[in-house]
């Protein structure tokens, strides 16, 4: 190991060369990879695992960098290096599940990512084949109606909080919106069931009830997002409008909302992306079915997340076909969510409100 030590001055310690930590890290990975390869050749472990190599290599690095630094640089620097290594490791550890999840979903989902999947339902399908058109249609319908319910309520609440709200009520609404973001999704499902069971009798299942459940989850997210965006609108714009004699409500409609339109769109899309993957409430109130159902108000309605869950949980004969469909459903779901996220961020970037100064 190349170590540069400066002798003489008792106030200065030796320092590791700049690249030394990186060299040690790579060396650790290579060593672990070598050990893995030897084990793999002897047949002790099944196959070479990249994730395992990176993980154990990093653990090895944390130990080695501490010892090396302790011997060269002294205790305080060694602790600093140890924490730096741990903090970097924490980030990498968080990336591992993300990488593993995305790669397995893509790899396993690609098998059934075909035309059938998007053009057929599961009606009269036993075993392989069939598709998830009924689930995709259901998801789009339920989420669209949920957005139709939540966006007006959420936007108007945000307007109330930013433009009108003063005093006790506004503070309570802000607090409860915050708390509402933490409502478990399954409780929202139970709530929708309880309401609709009261109206339509027990055992009710319909797509619209799913929309209501999703709205409960979506409204607080929309409120928060819109509130942040409305607050960004410079007060000078409002004052200029008032000075011209424009009534308050027209100021909001013609000045405040257009200025923050891009941000609000972004917020709404992120909110949609968040609820479109909700499973539990739809499992409870929209139920699951193998057939196409376009009618939100009549009977069970399949949705994509529930499709993934039921394919996984209720495997029929030829379980592999069900699992393959579940993976593809997951892939489609992730693609939809990622597309919404990406689009939202792009809108936010290119149409951001000009915030003065």
């Amino acid at each position, binding site marked *: 190991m190349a170590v540069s030590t400066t002798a003489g001055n008792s106030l200065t310690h030796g320092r590791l060369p700049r690249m030394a930590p990186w060299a040690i890290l790579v060396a650790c990975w290579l060593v672990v990879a070598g050990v893995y390869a030897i084990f793999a050749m002897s047949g002790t472990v099944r196959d070479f695992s990249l994730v395992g190599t990176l993980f154990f290599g990093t653990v090895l690095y944390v130990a080695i960098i501490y010892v090396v630094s302790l011997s060269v640089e002294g205790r305080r620097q060694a602790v600093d290096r140890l*924490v730096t290594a741990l*903090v*970097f490791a924490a980030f990498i550890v968080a990336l591992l599940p993300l990488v593993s999840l995305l790669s*397995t979903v893509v790899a396993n989902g690609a098998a059934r990512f075909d035309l059938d999947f998007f053009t057929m339902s599961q009606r009269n399908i036993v075993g392989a084949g069939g598709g998830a058109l009924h689930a995709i249609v259901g998801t789009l319908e339920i989420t669209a109606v949920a957005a139709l319910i939540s966006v007006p309520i959420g936007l108007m609440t945000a307007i109330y909080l930013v433009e009108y709200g003063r005093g006790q009520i506004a503070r309570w609404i802000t607090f409860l919106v915050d*708390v509402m973001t*933490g409502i478990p999704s399954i409780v929202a499902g139970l709530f929708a069931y*309880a309401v609709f069971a009261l109206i339509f009798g027990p055992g009710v299942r319909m797509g619209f009830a799913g929309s209501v459940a999703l709205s409960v989850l979506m409204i607080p997210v929309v409120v928060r997002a819109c509130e942040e965006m409305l607050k960004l609108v410079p007060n000078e714009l409002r004052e200029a409008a008032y000075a011209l004699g424009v009534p308050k409500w027209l100021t909001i409609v013609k000045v405040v909302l257009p200025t923050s339109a891009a941000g609000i769109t972004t917020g709404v899309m992120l909110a949609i992306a968040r609820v479109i993957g909700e499973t*539990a409430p739809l499992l409870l109130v929209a139920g699951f079915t193998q057939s196409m159902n376009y009618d939100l108000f009549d009977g069970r309605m399949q949705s994509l997340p529930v499709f993934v869950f039921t394919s996984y949980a209720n495997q029929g004969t030829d379980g592999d076909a069900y699992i393959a469909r579940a993976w593809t459903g997951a892939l489609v779901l992730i693609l939809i969510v990622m597309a919404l996220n990406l689009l939202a961020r792009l809108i936010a970037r290119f149409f951001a409100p000009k915030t003065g100064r």
Partner: protein
Amino acid sequence: MASAAVPIRAKQRPGDRVFSGSALAAGSTILILLAAVAIFLIAQGIPGVLAQPGDTVILGEKNFWDYVAPLAFGTLWAAALALLMATPLAIGIALFISHYAPRRLAQTLGYIIDLLAAVPSVVFGLWGGLVLAPLVRPAYAWLAENASWFPLFAGQASATGRTILTAAIVLAVMILPIMTAICREVFLQTPRLHEEAALALGSTRWEMIRMAVLPFGRAGIVSAAMLGLGRALGETMAVAMVLSPAAVISFIVIGSTNPNTIAANIALSFPEAFGTGVNVLIATGLVLFVVTFAVNAVARYVVNRRKEFSGAN
């Protein structure tokens, strides 16, 4: 001269009244909605709480409280395990993004962590059940062989890997983004001068963080942990798809009999439930609602006491 006492008021036009009225109505809808959630759950849950042993298939020979106890235990236990794993990781990642990563990369790295939040829970469940569980099975077998003196690892290891520890790992991954986001926000608010003073006195980066950043961010870390706890308590699908449940109270984390959680139990039992069984499940949901509401309210209260900071959502 007397007119000086009259305050100047903008003229109220009909449009103004309609608009402000509907804004107030929308705001009140939130209050009403939250009250409605509580009222409807209570109304539908009471018959479940009062159900006698033998009334319904779900309860079997137990009364409601005996039924809900293992579930409540499982919910708390799984969430606690997840929190135990996620808290140090979240603090580490937040520090990485706020103080260690190169400035220009920091925001992108934050987005990458936020990507985890975008993945639907059902996909996490699928991944946990089909990828993670087989992956951790050898580790559990090793633990059962070599570390069974430790109470949590006692007894036989599960043959499927679908234990409460696996579920807790998935939960930990799922609550990481929100915890990281809040810790990050708080760490970034550390007064610059405190950090520079610490560095100028010759402290290393870690000593600076320990003396300036962490004391400043303690309240933020606590509330991040509580928000994470709230999420973990209510998470449904990940647990329902990963865990193979039994109605037991057991601390063993790698065995084959694991307590179920309230949320997962509702998701798994609800489609087949009927009659009073539905009420029983709604009553368990009410228990969950009360617990998460309390946890979230306390967390938000702690966050809101620090002003200029409006949560990470």
